[in-house]
């Protein structure tokens, strides 16, 4: 709009003093003032605004901010989306509402107005169909046209100044690593929906991309590489071709979902919803102004405007005038967080649970800057230059030249997931399998120059000359095809500009970029029973087997209800220093990874006469670096276990199937354990699991240690109370009147004891049960039907494969991951 026209509008059409007309009924809409307020003039920011577009739809049932499209893992008929949607426009002065799209069985979300103010881009799920797709409609309600299609969901679109569209899509074929719904990450397409390609390699959600005036895309990136899964969802930026991915705000401060961020006109600030902790349903939270100038890590630069956490979808007209959705209302918030209601949904929609969403003014607006593309889509790789690996926060004591290599790891997308936890991928650590990609050299000046496959989620571990881990990255980076980009060091403050290194050029630039050197003989994706247990069997089990149990430690590969004894022991006894599921990161040098792991000390020659060869040592080393995971396939999730097995549909949160407690053998064993063991095992520190599925008691008495489903007679639950004369450990002691331990308890004199047999019966049934289910480390492994369903949907398994078939899950996972790799375009 020209200035002249704007002035004309202001002075002719909207004379100052014109009051907001209230209580006009149109299309069943009611415009109401906030209780107790009087009719007021709209702020001057509304002078050019004749209409506001918004979506109306009910909240979905799921409390997660992201779980609002697609279906649930264990039941494709159980949908995460809500039903019923309208796209409306509101005249903020008269309260008149025009309905542009009304679909009682469909879904409408995320409208954005084009730069020309004449059309609206939004995400629409047509009634009777499942996926959300991108649509455009003229602001007068004409010309509804579908831009994208296919079996995946496309949501949260925004126009790009180069004529394209950025959006989030589940085309990425991956699932939340700690929930039972699909993931959507950032894609772009042309303005007509053609030429769709990914801009992100995130394995978790990206959300609400929006263009900054300088041309970058501001968005929410959720990630958790070896750290808490519920704390790191902050603001990031990327260029409209996916290059230059960089944190914008918050990544060092866990515990807030920062989402729906948009630039505030005329400032360098952005407005965002800060939704506390792991975020609230439908992104609800506090409207917060973020100033970027002090950098991403300065908490004082975020100003929450108000109390309360029920606001959504802020659209700033200025720092002092923000359109915002609030329950069933559209409100205007000022810079002090005071709101005025300008619209309320009609009662009948309120009663159906409809809420107001995404109010945005229908006005023309300037295009943001266009950043020229830095990608070359014909390339498979991009290049990364690191100027000085020792330059960073918490690099205390790391000396120049100390780092000689970077270990390149990849955090791997997940094709299905069933629960909120990480089991059985790890025991309280990573949710995610990590690929050992290889190493790249670091020069004496700390520089590195490497070629990385495009659009994959990599992270690095800095290694010293002994290949011990010095510093671990707990985030990920990806390069785009053909991108050449640089970074300063490891975790340097983001307000730091690169210092001149004091020499003409980085040493790493004296030669072509290093391809990642594969590690000879090291598996790309570790499988603990396959890759680590044989080494333990050879070197550790002679002393730490089920019989000898030196130091009370068992490292046998006996299967517990979920983990092997050995896996449980190593993790429960803190033998590996992996990233736990905690809201801490950027750990001090040499406090995480193999170099900091007690297990490496046990195998360095100082532990009795244990001597591993170099390859065996490296096998252990890189297993720890790759997060010390248990299975080597995601098909292991929820499968072949007692306690975490999924085999039935239904329920929003797929319930863990706990079938064992219904068995007669279990009931009998539980009775015995209660009766015979309970009198002594009566305190928290000594509680025993009564069932194979019961998580009770500390690590020493964990169900994974006391039940041996490989060789039931070798279960600690049986051997400990069994007299040593009868082949047991005779380990149980009596408690005297004073509560002191006194003499052997002689619980089971021999194996003929009916109570002994009762417990054995349960364990034997458990063995039979998991052999029927099959576990990932069994030859005849049959993955769950949900895994098979998704792998067929992703085109990895053929149509003829049936649930219940024996499938090489490791190979299937590898093929799945490879299918997600960037395919160069000619």
């Amino acid at each position: 709009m020209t200035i002249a026209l704007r002035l004309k509008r202001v002075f002719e059409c909207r004379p100052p003093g014109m009051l907001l007309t209230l209580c006009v009924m149109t299309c069943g809409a009611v415009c109401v003032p906030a209780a107790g307020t009087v009719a007021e003039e709209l702020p001057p920011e509304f002078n050019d605004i004749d209409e506001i577009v918004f979506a109306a739809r009910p909240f979905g049932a799921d409390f997660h901010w992201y779980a609002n499209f697609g279906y649930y893992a264990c039941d494709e008929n159980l949908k995460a989306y809500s039903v019923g949607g309208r796209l409306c426009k509101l005249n903020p002065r008269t309260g008149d509402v025009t309905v542009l799209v009304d679909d009682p069985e469909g879904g409408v979300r995320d409208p954005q107005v084009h730069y020309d103010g004449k059309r609206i881009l939004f995400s629409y799920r047509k009634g009777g169909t499942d996926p959300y797709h991108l649509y455009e409609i003229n602001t007068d309600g004409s010309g509804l046209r579908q831009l994208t299609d296919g079996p995946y969901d496309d949501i949260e679109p925004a126009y790009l100044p180069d004529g394209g569209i950025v959006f989030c899509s589940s085309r990425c074929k991956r699932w939340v690593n700690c929930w039972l719904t699909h993931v959507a990450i950032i894609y772009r397409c042309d303005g007509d929906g053609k030429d769709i390609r990914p801009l992100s390699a995130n394995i978790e959600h990206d959300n609400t991309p929006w263009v900054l005036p300088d041309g970058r895309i501001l968005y929410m990136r959720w990630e958790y590489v070896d750290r808490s899964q519920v704390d790191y969802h902050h603001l990031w930026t990327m260029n409209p071709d996916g290059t230059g991915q960089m944190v914008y705000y918050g990544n060092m401060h866990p515990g807030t979902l920062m989402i729906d961020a948009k630039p505030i006109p005329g400032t360098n600030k952005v407005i965002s919803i800060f939704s506390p902790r792991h975020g609230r349903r439908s992104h609800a939270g506090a409207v917060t102004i973020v100033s970027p100038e002090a950098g991403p890590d300065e908490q004082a630069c975020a100003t929450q405007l108000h109390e309360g956490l029920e606001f959504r979808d802020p659209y700033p007209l200025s720092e002092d005038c923000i359109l915002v959705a609030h329950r069933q209302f559209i409100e205007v918030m000022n810079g002090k967080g005071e709101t005025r209601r300008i619209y309320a949904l009609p009662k009948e929609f309120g009663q159906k649970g409809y809420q107001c969403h995404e109010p945005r003014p229908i006005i023309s607006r300037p295009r943001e800057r266009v950043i020229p593309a830095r990608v070359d889509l014909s390339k498979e790789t991009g290049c990364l230059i690191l100027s000085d690996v020792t330059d960073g926060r918490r690099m205390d004591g790391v000396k120049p030249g100390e780092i000689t290599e970077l270990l390149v790891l990849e955090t791997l997308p997940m094709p299905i997931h069933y629960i909120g936890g990480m089991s059985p991928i790890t025991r309280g650590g990573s949710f995610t399998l990590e690929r050992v990609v290889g190493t790249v050299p670091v020069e004496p000046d700390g520089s590195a120059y490497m070629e990385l496959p495009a659009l994959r989620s990599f992270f690095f571990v800095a290694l010293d000359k002994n290949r011990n881990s010095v510093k671990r990255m707990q985030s990920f980076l990806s390069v785009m095809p053909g991108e050449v980009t640089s970074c300063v060091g490891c975790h340097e403050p983001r307000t730091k500009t690169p210092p001149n290194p004091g020499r003409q050029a980085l040493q790493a630039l004296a030669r072509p970029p290093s391809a990642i050197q594969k590690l000879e003989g090291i598996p790309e994706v570790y499988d603990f029973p396959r890759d680590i247990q044989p080494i333990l069997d050879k070197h550790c089990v002679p002393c730490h087997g089920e019989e000898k149990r030196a130091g009370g430690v068992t490292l046998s590969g006996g299967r517990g209800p979920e983990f092997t004894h050995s896996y449980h022991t190593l993790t429960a006894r803190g033998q590996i220093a992996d990233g736990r599921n905690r809201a801490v990161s950027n750990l001090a040098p040499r406090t995480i990874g193999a170099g900091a792991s007690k297990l490496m000390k046990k195998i360095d020659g100082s532990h009795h006469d244990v001597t591993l060869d170099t390859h065996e040592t490296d096998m252990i080393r890189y297993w720890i670096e790759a997060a010390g995971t248990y299975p080597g396939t995601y098909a292991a999730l929820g499968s072949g276990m007692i306690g975490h097995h999924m085999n039935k549909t239904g329920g929003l949160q797929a319930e863990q199937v706990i079938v064992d407690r219904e068995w007669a053998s279990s009931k009998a064993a539980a009775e015995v354990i209660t009766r015979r063991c309970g009198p002594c095992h009566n305190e928290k520190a000594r509680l025993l699991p009564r069932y194979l599925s019961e998580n009770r008691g500390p690590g020493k008495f964990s169900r994974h240690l006391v039940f041996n489903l490989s060789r039931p007679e070798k279960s600690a639950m049986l051997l400990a109370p069994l007299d040593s004369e009868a082949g047991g450990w005779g380990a149980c002691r009596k408690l005297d009147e004073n509560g002191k331990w006194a003499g052997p308890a002689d619980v089971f004199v021999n194996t003929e004891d009916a109570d002994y047999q009762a417990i054995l019966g349960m364990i034997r049934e458990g063995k039979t049960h998991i052999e029927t289910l099959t576990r990932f480390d069994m030859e005849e492994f049959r993955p769950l039907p949900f895994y098979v369903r998704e792998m067929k949907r992703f085109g990895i398994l053929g149509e003829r494969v049936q649930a219940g078939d024996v499938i090489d899950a490791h190979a299937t996972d590898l093929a799945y991951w490879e299918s997600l790799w960037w395919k160069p375009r000619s």
Partner: protein
Amino acid sequence: MKSAAIWRRRCLAVIVVLAVLPGIAVAQEYLSPVAVAVSPDQSALYVAAHTGHRILAVDLGNKAVANTFALPGPPTGLCVSADGAALYVTLGTPKGSLLVMNRADGAVQATIPVGHTPIAPVASPDGTCIYVCNRFDNTVAVIDTATKAEVAKIPVLREPFAAAVTPDGKWLCVANHLPAGASDGDYVSAQVSIIDTAARNVAKNVVLPNGSTGLRGLAVSPDGAYAYATHILGRYQLPTTQLERGWMNTNAVSIIDIAKQELVNTVLVDDVDLGGANPWGVVCSADGAYLCLSHAGTHEISVIDRAAMHDKIAKVAAGEQVSEVSRAPEDVPNDLAFLVGMRRRLKLKGKGPRGIAIAGTTVYAAEYFGDSVGVVDVNPEARPGAASIALGPEQELSAVRQGQVFFNDAALCFQHWQSCASCHPDVRADGLNWDLLNDGMGNPKNTKSLFLSHQTPPVMITGVRDKAETAVRSGIRYIQFAVRPEEDAVAIDEFLKTVEAVPSPHLLEGALSEAAKRGEAIFNEIGCASCHPAPLFTDLQPYNVGTGKDRESEVKFDTPTLVEVWRTAPYLHDGRAATVLDMLKSEDSGAQHHPTGLTDEQLADLAEYILSL
């Protein structure tokens, strides 16, 4: 001889409209204010209109031009005499002069000859002398105000561009515009010369942080304790892969303790995602509260809370971590958030602010491309924002002028980190080596002057761009990370094509010296002219001249023009030779550039000729 003749003709043609600062001839209808000075009673502002060849007196009461004093050439700087009676104006021509003008009516009372392209006149506090920077003579002239004659000429380092004197008159601080010396070492920076005014010599050259170049402004605090120099801080030792977070050029103020004659520290005047390109003029408010500087590339005034800044610098010097980045003093020049909370960026109405002055809390800025003076109250409570005082009628911008605007305007650039002029000040070169991606990485090369680039294709040292037009567009895309309409690039082309040479300071009255004439004979005799033939002094061909190292040992480099080579030091593709004579004498220059069998005297003559081109 033919070449010299051509050259002399060119000089004559140029001299009339010579735009001294950048050596750029632009249409005379533009005023192009470069410097401002406030009268002692703060009632009037004097504006040096560079291409307008005049001084404009602005009545600060009604904020309008009250008087115009025509000049015989382009003014580059001005100051008011200590008693307020006179205006001292430098006329920036090769045969430069200092005008003494009656402040009331503009009558020229004296025309004092000084050096090549004088700039930045500074009156001593006691009124006894005027200091003038002779930019292309690399000297500072001392003029006795009583005798109106030069009494001393003090050599400084390279292109003295700005100066300020302490209130006690003891120290004159001079900003050397560019680094001097070879550029292939580990540390390259421009320096600030501190002159002992009594001894009339340089007491100390203060070295700025590695990568400092493009010094444009210098101010001294009211108490005389500190000098502040504005400059670019290039991250030239890293490949130019991106701009985010100041990956190429950052923009800075260096703070010098005058008594100790040492650098206190250097602070960046960019923000983490918004550059503040090309800082130029700098002033302190009289009460010392504010340090204000202009950003010629982003059309802003930065207002720094001086006490807060010094306090933070002192704390970090005392070992306190004052920000996430600044744990130690050496971190400060890399801290994009150091000034957060103590610096405000005020947008100006007009483009291209250069010299600035302050009266009370009002800053006046010479808006070079706005033909206006920007006025902004730096008081944090002040409302409204900046205003502009038009110095003449509003004019359409010619394509050439528009091109010049674009060349200097960092608004073209992603996040406003730099403009073309950041690496190519006045279209020439910043004296640094840069590692551009167009010829691979790890092989930095000395910035080339863009003078004659459109006339001497191909361009870039490796000749990787077939012509300058291509390079202009590549620069927009790969250096500024911007998408611009074709007409913007065309305008930049048009501007660059019009750039005129600045006559060499080695010429005598526009002609070759005797030594240069002898050198010319040698030049032709030993074959220099075969690759560097007149009139462009390049045959436009690439050669392997044996200077490429390692991966580049077989790489051919495009033959550069030698016109204006006197101002494009250092030499050879990686700037390994600080001077032409160094180049001729060093075996490291390759056979073609290290002629054997010549006496030292002959080599000196040859160098003198080359430097006269």
